[in-house]
């Protein structure tokens, strides 16, 4: 849900939730072994449901790029 909240917050953020068994090619592409798996901007991968500050620590890396 955090991803969707971020999409509400910013017009620059889009948030997709993807049911991986229906799109197995994406599961392979993003190496989804466990769910939820969050992929930010194709590069940052987060395993599991993490608290907001944790997610934002990863998100900060996007700003640095």
């Amino acid at each position, binding site marked *: *849900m*955090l*991803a*969707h*909240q*971020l*999409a*509400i*917050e*910013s*017009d*620059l*953020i*889009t*948030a*997709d*939730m*993807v*049911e*991986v*068994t*229906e*799109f197995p090619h*994406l*599961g392979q592409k*993003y190496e*989804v072994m466990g*769910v*939820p*798996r*969050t*992929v*930010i*901007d*194709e590069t940052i991968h987060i395993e599991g449901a993490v608290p*907001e*500050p944790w997610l*934002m620590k990863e*998100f*900060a890396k*996007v*700003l640095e790029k």
Partner: protein
Amino acid sequence: MALLNEKIRKEVRAALADVKQPVTLKVFTQTFECDYCKETRELVEEVAAQSPNVSVEVYDFIEDSKVAASYAIDKVPAVAIVGKKDYGIRLYGIPAGYEFGALIEDIKLVSAGDSALLPETRAMVAKLTKPIRIQVFSTPT
């Protein structure tokens, strides 16, 4: 046949009771070679029927390709959850199981139009200068 039983419908009705600002669920389907497209449309229509402020629009991924492109839909079934503007929230695959809860929460979130995020998160997000796509992968269970 209904996908949601009366007990679930009741829960959905209660969950959507606070939805005051209109929300449109734009469903993208395809007639052939799409697992769960039909079920996705039916499920979304049943959910929308539980609130006077939630409506459904159905589009064909091929015939309405311009609409699909305008919502950046790249696979089906897809549901775009749109409020007074398009916030960029999409569900791909049938919104059952974990995604069913997400659908209900998304409707509430989009209707309210407020992220309810922490102040420091909002400050960080405000620094963004380029578009970012976040993808969350889930399974039905």
